[in-house]
C-alpha cells in the first residue's frame, strides 16, 4: 500500500510531508483520502478499538473487524465524516485465519468492497489506469512495490491535489516495512516538454491511399 504526502487547503499546499498511511495494528494499515481531520480521528479510533480488542481477546485483530467498525461508524454519520479508506493486511498467525492478504475499500458513505488492487482519492483515476494495465496475479514483493510506486507517480503527476513525495508500506507475514518518503524526479524540477508541437513529415503512418481524379470545371481565386 502507498500514498502521496501532500495535504491541500483549497489550492494551497498546506503540508508537503504528511503521513497518509495510518497504522491500525502491527499487521493492519489504512491509507486515507478525504478530510485530513476526519481521517486522523477515524484511524485513531480504529487503532484504539483494535488494540482494546486484541487485549480483551488475546488474539490478533482481524482486518474485517476494522473494516466493519469503519463502515458502521461512517454509515452512521451518513457521509459527513469525509473519510475514504483503503484497509490492507496480511494475517500473521498462520492457521488462525489462513485466507491470505486482504485489501478493502471503505467510502465515507459506508460502502465497502474487496479488491485485488484499487486506488482511492483525487489521483485515483490516473493511478487505476497503471494498475489496470500492469497488475497480474501472484506478483513478487518487489514487482508489487514497483507497480504501486508507478501508480502513485501517475496519480501525483496527473492530479493537482497529489504530489511532493510518496510513502509505501509493505505488509508481510513476518514483518512490516515502511519505505519513503520517496521523491520522484518530476517533483524535483520543472519538467522539460516531451515533444515538439510541430510534427515531422511521416509522423502519421499511412494505412491506405486512394487517388480520386476530378475534372476542374471552374476554379475560384482565393488570393484575397
Amino acid at each position: 500500500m502507498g500514498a502521496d504526502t501532500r495535504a491541500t487547503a483549497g489550492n494551497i499546499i498546506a503540508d508537503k510531508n504528511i503521513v497518509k498511511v495510518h497504522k491500525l495494528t502491527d499487521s493492519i494499515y489504512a491509507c486515507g483520502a478525504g478530510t485530513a481531520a476526519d481521517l486522523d480521528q477515524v484511524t485513531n479510533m480504529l487503532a484504539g478499538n483494535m488494540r482494546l480488542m486484541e487485549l480483551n481477546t488475546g488474539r490478533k485483530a482481524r482486518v474485517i473487524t476494522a473494516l466493519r467498525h469503519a463502515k458502521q461508524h461512517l454509515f452512521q454519520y451518513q457521509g459527513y465524516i469525509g473519510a475514504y479508506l483503503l484497509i490492507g493486511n496480511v494475517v500473521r498467525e498462520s492457521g488462525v485465519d489462513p485466507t491470505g492478504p486482504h485489501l478493502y475499500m471503505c467510502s465515507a458513505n459506508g460502502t465497502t468492497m474487496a479488491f485485488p488492487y484499487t486506488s482511492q482519492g483525487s489521483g485515483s483515476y490516473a493511478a487505476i489506469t497503471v494498475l489496470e494495465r500492469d497488475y497480474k496475479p501472484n506478483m513478487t514483493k518487489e514487482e508489487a512495490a514497483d507497480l504501486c510506486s508507478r501508480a502513485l507517480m501517475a496519480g501525483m503527476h496527473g492530479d493537482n491535489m497529489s504530489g511532493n513525495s510518496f510513502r509505501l508500506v509493505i505488509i508481510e507475514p513476518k514483518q512490516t516495512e515502511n519505505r519513503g518518503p520517496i521523491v520522484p524526479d518530476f517533483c524535483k524540477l520543472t519538467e522539460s516538454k516531451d515533444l515538439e508541437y510541430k510534427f515531422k513529415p511521416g509522423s502519421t503512418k499511412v494505412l491506405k491511399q486512394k487517388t480520386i481524379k476530378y475534372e476542374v470545371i471552374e476554379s475560384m481565386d482565393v488570393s484575397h
Partner: protein
Amino acid sequence: MDTMRKDMREAIPALGFYPHENISTGTTLISMEFDGGVVVGTDSRTSSGSFISSRATNKITPLTDNIVVCRSGSAADTQAIADIVKYHTEAHTVVENKPLTVYRITQIFRRFLYEYRDSLSASVLVAGWDKENGGQLYAIPLGGFVTRQRSTASGSGSTFVQGFLDSKWKPNLTRDECKEIVKMAVGLAVFRDGSSGGVVRLSVIDAKGTTLELFRPDKPNFPTVKAPLPHLSLPPHIDQEPDEN
C-alpha cells in the same frame, strides 16, 4: 487530501471530483420463480457518477443458506440494511430454533425500508426457498412495499427487459429454462443500459441451498446480443466494411 470541510461539499467537475456522490449500483437484477426454487441474475457494475468504481461486484448477498437478497440503489444503504436484516434473521433463528421463511425476512426488510423511506435509497429483491412455500421471489421497491412476483426485473436495466421477460414467461418453466431466460435478460439489459455491465452472476436457490455461477464476457456462454447492423454513414467513395457485430 483536503483539509477544508467546505471543499468536501463542493464538487470540482474539472478534476472529476464529486465528494458526496453516493456510490450506487445502477443495476440490472432479474429473477424468476420455478417449481422448487428461484433463479436470480445480476450484472456486476458499481458506479460513482460516471466512474465505474468496481466492475466485478457481487450484488447477490446471502442472508441464510436458502435466502439471498439482490441489492440496487445506494451501495452504502443496501449493504447496511442487508447487514441489519441478516443480524435480525440470525437472532430470530436462534430464538425459534428453526430457519425463517422467506416472507418473514421480507417483513424485516419492510420494517426498515418503510421506517427510513425518506433517508434510504434502497430497492431489493428477496429470493429464496423455504419448506412452507417452496421457491419464492419478492420485490421491495423504494417505499418499502412488498410484492410477491413470479418473474421480475429491477434496477436501472430493468426497463429494457420488462417486455422480454413478459414474453418468455409461461407456467411450469424448468430450472434450466429459467436460467437461460434470466441470463439472456441480463445480457439484453447490460447491452442497452449504460449503468449496468461487467460480468453476469447467476444464482439458483432451492431446497439444497444456493449456487452461484459466473459468466465473463471474455469466456464462453456469456449472453451476446445481435443488434441490427447500422447503415453505412460515410459517402460511398470511401471504402467501408460493415461491422460484423
